[in-house]
């Protein structure tokens, strides 16, 4: 391993242990790593945004092609972006509203189409299928369960009607489907969190301890 790798691995290992020390109790080592975590993450944003987005998509086109032709609209983008920061100058803080309005407006517009065309329609279409299952009993049963599940879950989320009588019973079935979904989500969440722990333990055992032993000449 190169020097920067050895040093880096030790830094990473010590930071990992600092954070893990919280499992015993809150302590200054954890607080140190926690503060560094927030700072480094923000610094990371600065680096990637400048290097990967603003440089190639704004600075270079404007520097190379000037402010004419097809890149003229980029000037506008730069101004809109900079204008967002006027919110930190109290006297002209309201300037930022226009930039925010454009930004929010575009994303809610795209989101509306995305939700209706990309979610509501295909998900509803996939529920409205032939319940006979083309002669396959299991397929017919699954389609039926799916239909009942979707309708009852939607009924549960329909709060304009009081959940009583037949409607209440149907929405209770919806709750059962939801509970099953949440239970499955919990099971998968356990799986996910354990996976992340495996990642850190692997780092400590294989890369840090194993790597250090290897560099000291122990093991293959």
């Amino acid at each position, binding site marked *: 391993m190169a020097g920067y790798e050895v040093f880096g691995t030790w830094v990473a290992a010590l930071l990992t242990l600092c954070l893990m020390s919280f*499992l*015993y109790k809150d302590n200054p080592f954890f607080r140190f790593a926690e503060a560094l975590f927030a700072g480094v*993450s923000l610094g*990371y*944003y600065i680096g*990637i*945004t400048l290097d*990967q*987005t603003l*440089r*190639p*998509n704004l600075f*270079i*086109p404007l520097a190379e092609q000037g402010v004419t032709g097809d890149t003229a609209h980029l000037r506008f983008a730069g101004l809109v972006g900079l204008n967002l920061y006027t919110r930190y100058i109290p006297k002209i803080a309201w300037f930022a509203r226009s930039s925010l309005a454009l930004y929010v407006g*575009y*994303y809610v517009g*795209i*989101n509306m189409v*995305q*939700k209706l*065309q*990309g*979610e509501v329609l*295909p*998900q509803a*279409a*996939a529920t409205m299928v032939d319940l006979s299952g083309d002669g396959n009993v299991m397929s017919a049963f699954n389609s039926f369960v*799916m239909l009942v599940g979707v309708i009852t879950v939607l009924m549960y989320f329909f709060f304009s009607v009081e959940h009583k009588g037949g409607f209440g019973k149907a929405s209770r079935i919806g709750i059962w489907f939801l509970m099953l*979904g949440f239970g*499955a*989500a919990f099971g*998968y*969440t*356990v*799986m*996910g969190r*354990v*996976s*992340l*722990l*495996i*990642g*850190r*333990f*692997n*780092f400590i*055992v*294989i*890369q840090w301890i*194993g*790597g250090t032993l290897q560099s000291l000449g122990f093991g293959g």
Partner: protein
Amino acid sequence: MSTALAKLTTIDRRWIFLLIGLGTLIPILIPIGFPVTITPPVQSIYDKIETLGENDVVVLSYDYGPTTAAENEPMADAIIRHCFLRKVKVVALALYPLGGLTAVNGSVTRVSAEFPGLQYGVDYVNLGYKDGGQASMKLLAEDFSKAFPGDTNGTPLSTLPLMQKVTGARNAQLAVSIATGVIGEWWANLINAQYGLPVAVGCTAVSAPKYYAYLEAGQMLGLIGGLKGASEYEQLLLNGYPQTKTIYSNPMLQTASKGMDVQTIDHLIIIGFIVLGNIAYFAGRRAKQA
């Protein structure tokens, strides 16, 4: 007896932490090597890539960061490795701000080193990271260069032969998003929905239950869910490409298959805790009634 059991509910949680810690550490030190069974959603992605060849292009989006890398990284590595084994062209990119760039740079560098015959710019390209979410996705679907004027190092796309072959993601044969959170969904409900590009997703276990709805509706052709899904894909590669055995048996490599040993032990410990917790709960109720 009931009172003693009821007292269990008040034990210091650090004992639970210790057990989980040991359950994780011991199988790493002493691997068991449990077998892995393949599920249909993972098999479908493998089968799809098996139908592709050297004239086809896969867009591989690294939509995760270090927080979930332990789950997502083995999937991403397995997918790009599969593409390289079949000489399928790969356009790699990242849309997740908190670490997507680190993920794509790491994975492309790591796996491309296993294939010295492949040429950067001709067989694969790393476009790096881009802000903008859906705006970037829509742009790259139509024309990569509008979202990514250059690759991760700033090399103009016009100088990379692969990017002349595939101008936008909609011209590719498949998009695979290895995702944490919502970006994988966008590939289905925006790119698949509006451009018809086949989409497959490798997601974190936490997101898997939701992604099943997209899978069932045909908005995704396959799904790799969590570390288990990743281990299945590794197994498929080992079965289909025996030469990958040298890669996956490297003791310094963190693979999903090795992780399944720990996963098994820890799941059993947690199920044990749930059972024990319930016994203690009922014992407590009985003691109260008595």
